[in-house]
């Protein structure tokens, strides 16, 4: 009896199924109604987060975590005598600097050989701006450290031509004087390689390739050149001209957004601060008059951040050193910013001390640099943002896209009249989706992307049909061709999707297609951000809002507006905009892109063509469906 009472109670408490379904439907309705706005909210949260990063509250002081390094704790031997040697070298270099590459290399070879190095000259072949075969000559020397087994080495390099375009006279001079100094001492546990590269990027890349036996057998002198062990770290000296310098700039971004271990930068900074006592900065920003007010400092940090993001997103190495990162060599470029006069400048002596002390620290390394971060942002030379801090925004972007795509996926084709039929609108559409059409669209666009990629590559010369007299025309042709391909692909896709009979189907289709596209974008953004955060972040920033707004409308102007928006986002136009913003011709921008791809193996081009553009194309069909 009592049991039954209880049962009854229990039964009563249970609301009837209908109510429950009602509630569920309401809930889902709410969700579907608010999710777009929620996702937009997420997006803005992400943006704000990114903007907060430069603020000192959100980044920390850098610190040296590898105990073996002990930076700035050795007493250095680079004396006035060495400065005189460097000065001599400067004069001798000034004599040869305008001579042929051969004689320059010859000069370096002789100097290193007489210093007791195992010197050699490397002839290499590379591609010039117009992607024709070009010759080059590197000169380098190896100091086999006594009693060491020669499994590890340190690289000190300097290009003949500075990033500023003038000759890197002081850089080379001080490198040579340092070579003499290094040879004098016997405390080296690692070999030391002195490398003077011909033209900066190409020479460096050619030498690194040869050293690691990449494209072996292509060039005799590269194949038989003397080698040492695994290079642990590299410093690239770039001190243009013969004048003095007011501050030290550090370039650290590598190809494809790779970064050197933070400890290397910390070491150089510490040495520069305490031993050499030179003002330092990141990139070529102002190092002398430090920001006073918090606002200023915030803006300065933001500047640093954006610079880094720019380099990383384009995958373009910020300096020669950036090329070494791929070979597990932590490398940075130290660049002298020429004195404007008002501050007391520094010359060979402090340059020498700086490099010597740094190398002594690196010489202490027992293992490859691994203690500190490989993923970080530097808001200034002494503050960093760790991956834990900067990763969430991109994830937020991805989430925002994924949520929308889910809503689209689950939203029934015609919810309004559905409600009337069955008492409750379901949480998900039971109607059959025909994914075939949507997938075929995506496949088409991706195929188009691949095709474009193959055409745009410099290796592709239209099957020899067009011999390229000057590359500008070729580039333009290539661009226009690729645009054509894109257009046709879009048309095909539209026809594919709208060739369906019932309007219901089409309604269904655009939803599915868009949700697929958004999901794909989210996937791309999230995964790329793991490899190259900046690229992911930038893509997320520019893409999220437009892509979520896209949807078919009856009104023609709106359609056109959306089309324009997509076109703006399409790679060619973006490239054009970037070019115009950096006040250069689009062709040059393309050339840079292609050069990076060809010489430095930057895969931004491939990414653009095979991942970014196809989605963009596919979305057109959503509009015109």
């Amino acid at each position, binding site marked *: 009896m009592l049991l*039954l009472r209880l049962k009854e109670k229990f*039964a009563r408490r249970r609301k009837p199924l*209908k109510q429950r379904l009602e509630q569920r439907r309401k809930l889902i309705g709410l969700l579907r109604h608010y999710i777009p706005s929620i996702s937009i909210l997420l997006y803005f949260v992400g943006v704000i987060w990114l903007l907060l990063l430069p603020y000192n509250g959100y980044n920390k002081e850098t610190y040296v975590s590898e105990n073996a390094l002990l930076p700035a704790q050795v007493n250095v031997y680079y004396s006035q005598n060495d400065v005189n040697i460097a000065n001599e070298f400067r004069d001798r270099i000034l004599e040869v600097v305008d001579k042929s590459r051969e004689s320059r290399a010859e000069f370096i070879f002789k100097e290193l050989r007489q210093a007791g190095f*195992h010197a050699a000259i490397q002839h290499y072949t590379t591609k010039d701006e117009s992607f024709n075969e070009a010759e080059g000559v590197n000169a380098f020397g190896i100091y086999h450290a006594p009693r060491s*087994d020669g499994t590890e080495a340190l690289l000190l390099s300097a290009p003949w031509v500075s990033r500023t375009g003038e000759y890197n006279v002081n850089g080379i001079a001080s490198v040579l004087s340092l070579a003499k100094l290094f040879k004098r001492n016997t405390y080296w546990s690692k070999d030391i390689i002195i490398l003077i590269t011909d033209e900066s990027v190409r020479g460096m890349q050619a030498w690194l390739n040869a050293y690691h036996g990449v494209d*072996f*057998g292509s060039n005799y002198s590269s194949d038989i050149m003397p080698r040492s062990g695994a290079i642990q770290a590299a410093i690239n000296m770039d001190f243009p001209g013969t004048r003095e310098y007011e501050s030290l700039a550090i370039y650290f971004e590598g190809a494809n957004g790779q970064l050197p271990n933070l400890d290397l930068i910390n070491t150089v900074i510490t040495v520069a601060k305490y031993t050499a006592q030179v003002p330092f900065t990141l990139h070529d920003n102002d190092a002398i008059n430090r920001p006073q007010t918090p606002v200023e400092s915030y803006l300065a940090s933001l500047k640093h951040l954006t610079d880094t993001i720019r380099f990383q997103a384009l995958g373009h190495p910020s300096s020669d050193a950036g090329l070494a990162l791929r070979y597990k060599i932590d490398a940075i470029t130290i660049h002298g910013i020429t004195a404007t006069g008002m501050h007391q400048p520094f010359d060979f002596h402090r340059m020498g001390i700086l490099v010597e002390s740094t190398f002594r620290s690196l010489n202490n390394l027992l293992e490859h640099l691994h203690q500190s971060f490989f993923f970080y942002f530097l808001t200034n030379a002494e503050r960093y943002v760790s991956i834990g801090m900067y990763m969430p925004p991109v994830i937020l972007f991805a989430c925002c896209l994924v949520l929308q795509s889910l809503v689209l996926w689950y939203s029934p084709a015609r919810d309004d009249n559905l409600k009337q039929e069955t008492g409750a609108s379901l949480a998900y559409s039971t109607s059959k989706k025909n994914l075939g059409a949507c997938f075929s669209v995506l496949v088409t666009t991706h195929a188009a992307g691949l095709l474009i990629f193959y055409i745009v590559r410099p290796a592709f010369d239209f099957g020899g049909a067009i011999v390229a007299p000057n590359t500008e025309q070729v580039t333009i042709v290539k661009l226009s061709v690729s645009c054509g391909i894109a257009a046709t692909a879009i048309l095909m896709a539209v026809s594919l999707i709208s060739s369906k009979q019932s309007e219901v189907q089409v309604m269904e289709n655009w939803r599915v297609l868009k949700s697929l596209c958004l999901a794909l974008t989210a996937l791309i953004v999230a995964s790329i951000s793991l490899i190259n955060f900046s690229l992911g972040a930038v893509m997320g920033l520019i893409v999220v809002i437009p892509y979520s707004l896209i949807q078919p409308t009856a009104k023609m102007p709106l359609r056109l507006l959306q089309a324009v928006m997509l076109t703006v986002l399409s790679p060619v136009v973006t490239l054009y905009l970037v070019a115009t913003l950096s006040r250069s011709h689009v062709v040059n921008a393309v050339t840079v892109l292609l050069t990076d791809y060809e010489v430095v193996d930057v895969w931004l081009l491939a990414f653009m063509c095979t991942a970014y553009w196809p989605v963009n194309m596919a979305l057109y069909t959503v509009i015109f469906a």
Partner: protein
Amino acid sequence: MPWKKLPSCILLLLALAYPVQSKLSSQKDSFQEDLLISPLKDGKLLAHFQFTTLVDAGGLDEKDGRYAHYGLFPKSIGQIIDHHRVQELHLTFTQGRWQYEDWGYPVAQSAGTGVELWAWMKLDDSIESNWRSLTNTLSGLFCASLNFIDGTLTSQPELSFRPEGAKNSYNHDERMREGAEVRYGILPHENVCTENLTPWIKLLPCKSKAGIATLLNAHKLYDTNYHSMAIHIRPVCQDANCTSQSLELVQTVTSVLDPVRESGRRDWSFSSLFGREIQSACPVSDRSAVTVLLPSEQHEYQLTPSYDTIIERTAAQVERPIAVYNLSQHTEPLNLQMTWNEGEFSYPLQTSKPRVYAHKYMTGYGHERGGVTVNIFNNMNESQDISYFDSVPWFLKLYLHTLEVSVLGKDHIDQNDIVQDLYYQPAVDRSRPQVLEMKLRLPPDSVTAVSIEFDKVFLKYTEHRPDANRGFDVGPAVITTLLPAGDDNLASTVLELVTNRDTPTRQNIKVYTEILLASLPTPDFSMPYNVITLTCTVIALFFGSIFNLLIRGFSVTEDEVDEKKHENKDEISNSS
């Protein structure tokens, strides 16, 4: 001159003693000590100590097969080779690299960086355990971590390493196979230091108390560009047709010193090089001599004190005069001194390349796969036969199909014309290395590139070293060839000449390449358990969701059903 009397009185004594058939322990032994000094092309100075102890191997085949009573021959060594049934043993401790381009060929052939041990073990069913305990015993004796030469580092060369002793058969191979097997192991990253030198010195009859060994001053020796310390034990023939053998123990210390570093000049003296002088010869030595290989031009230098005997262009091959100091004739301590008539020494612009040498280096980048390439240089204008040996640890998985032998710059030459013979032993994970051996015929002045690719294994986390991020050392490749005496192996020729053993027409030269550092994929050791835990949680979440999805039932429910339920519920309550 007591040193002259010594052998004679032994003879006399023999004569007396023989009827009473008394044989003294040490009279069947003989001990020689030599120091060879030779200036090198790049201003360095080669100092090669060599101590030779010969003992009548008759003792070896006693009735109980043990060699019991030791005179000058060190008992510990004798015991070791008896107990482990070793026929021939070569142990080398080397620090630094021998620069073949600058210095020509080393006097002691074994020059691989690190600690190298190879031995011919008498055939025996317990040969493996013998080798194992041999390494352990030696590591105990020399305070080196030789015991790390386990199965994963031990290899059995088929083509390269030949017995150097009585059964020496570089010319006829089939004979060396009989009765013994070779074992080879090397520790590339083993540092050599005083604690290795001390036991080594204790093996000498006079320790470092008298004779040339007094110069072995650890402080100076280990402050050189190259230092190598070796023990070679081998049976040698006493007469031409090898009726009776004797056991030879050769202890060598080779070091390349750099007088230029301090002063910028090439001048040197015993006191400047070793901080000591030679007081007297070792009393028990049969011969004790210092040999200086002089530069060809007389006017370039002074050498004080003046030498006892000088050999002027004796052998056909030796183009330079040789000064010999016979220590046992010297009553006053000897402090050799050489001064050059020149100011600052300037390095020569061109290196003097030896006839055959090689370089080895890693190729490729990334943690997934890589490759290794060896460039073998042949600077002679006739083709040269060499045998190439390389033992690659198991954690680099070689792919034999990627093996490529090419002559750089001469693409027309076919690979099959170069490779005469090939022996490859695949690795067994965690127990055996790969062994790649080839007999090559190098074309006249050419560079032959041997390249092969490998995958890098992802090791278990317990298999990583404490310094995991340093990488793993890969031993050198060894190139063995026969060369006639020439300018690049002058030193060894001279030593042969001076120790008036017969100078061989062709010398067996070993060329060791660099040792390499293979960086394998390394996990972050800072927080392994966090990683494990996190992974586990993720898996659990995945499983949970999938499982729930599996067992959730979806069913379309109509409201009527619901009502009905209520109704019959009421009925039930009424009925009861």
